[in-house]
């Protein structure tokens, strides 16, 4: 069936099976392999995407549910020649080791900062509690989100 949606800011339509998982659609049909599959059962957050700004799990969404929605994947976060402040901060703070959880972490953090631009460390931990990282111990990820929040505040003020 034909599904129409906005993918990273661009009107898109694709003919696919209605029950194709969104994670497979993104990776196989669009070649957007930044969205990862970890557990395939909603427990790890690696497949996180933003649907109308909310972080959701693309492994638990049949493609048909994208109809009429606007979605953002990690590939859609950066401006043309400039990384998103969260991406900058993840690099600067060493919040990436193997990198498998990073796209999901960054998108979950992005959803948090959109509604709460000055989160506490506790609020950051809570907002990222659906995203597992097996390498970093989370400390540097929380540091990076805090730093990105400061940078974005400064950007908005300046």
């Amino acid at each position: 069936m034909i599904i129409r949606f906005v993918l990273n800011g661009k009107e898109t339509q694709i003919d696919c099976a209605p029950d194709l998982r969104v994670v497979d659609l993104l990776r196989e049909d669009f070649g957007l392999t930044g969205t990862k599959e970890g557990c395939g059962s909603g427990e790890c957050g690696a497949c996180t995407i933003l649907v109308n700004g909310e972080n959701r799990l693309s492994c638990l969404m049949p493609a048909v549910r994208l109809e009429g929605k606007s979605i953002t994947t990690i590939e859609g976060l950066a401006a043309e020649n400039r990384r998103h402040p969260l991406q900058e901060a993840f690099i600067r703070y060493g919040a990436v080791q193997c990198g498998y959880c990073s796209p999901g972490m960054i998108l979950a953090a992005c959803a948090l900062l959109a509604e709460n631009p000055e989160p506490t460390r506790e609020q950051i931990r809570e907002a990222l509690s659906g995203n597992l990282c097996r390498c970093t111990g989370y400390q540097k990820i929380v540091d990076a989100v805090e730093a990105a929040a400061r940078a974005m505040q400064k950007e908005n003020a300046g």
Partner: protein
Amino acid sequence: MNRVLLPKNLPELWSCLENEPNAKVYAGGTDLLVQMRARCEDNLVLVCLERIADLTGIREDEDVFWIGACTTFRRLLDHPQIREQIPVLTKALSTLGSPPIRNMATIGGNICTASPAGDTLPPLYVLDADLILSTQASERVIPLSGFITAPGKTRLEKGEILTGIRVKKPEGYHIQHFEKVGQRKALACAVASMAALVKTSSAGVIESARIAWGSVGPTVVMPPDVEAALIGKTLSPAVLKAATDLAGTAMAPIDDLRATAAYRRKVAGNLLLRIGT
């Protein structure tokens, strides 16, 4: 391949169900889709309720909340009146799954899944919630406590869907408590959980007590003798302690990969001690 239908309103839904009487109905999909994949189920017809506006949202009148069955946990958590009037429910929701799960999963889904560990069930039992079950031609209202009959089994009939939940606001001040014991804070299936709605006089004498446990029996356990043992007594650790044994007797927990039955019984009973702390 499975077919997925996405009706946009109730008339479309009723015709989907008429044409596909064996369709599986779902909303968030956080449970059904995992189960289907695990069982490699194919050639099913799925009907997704998320686009039906009449099934979403929260309406409030003087003494009752109506919650659309397809309202996500996120919407409930963000609702100031729900937070203020029935914090026992919001406390449970904040322990359920993870933020992305709460953005997708719905209250009606949690009820119809009828898991012994469903996190919204103990609070909705103590709040004495009613369910509105509808078909194209009829509507009936039944108490939640009479709806779930066994793990995964409900009184939902063919062609019938859960459209809404009616929750009465507790009259006057109540202690509203919820606690869940899990193996970790997020994304943990409850080892045991307890919701309590307790009213005391200004002198601290318990006037009413509704207490419900999850994950310690095939369905929610709400023993009347525990409530009877508390009423008329002054709320104190000793009084609560005395009720833990009665609570343990009413439970029928199982051993599984998360905990032993004995541990479940013990920890669930001890959750009583947190009431009013």
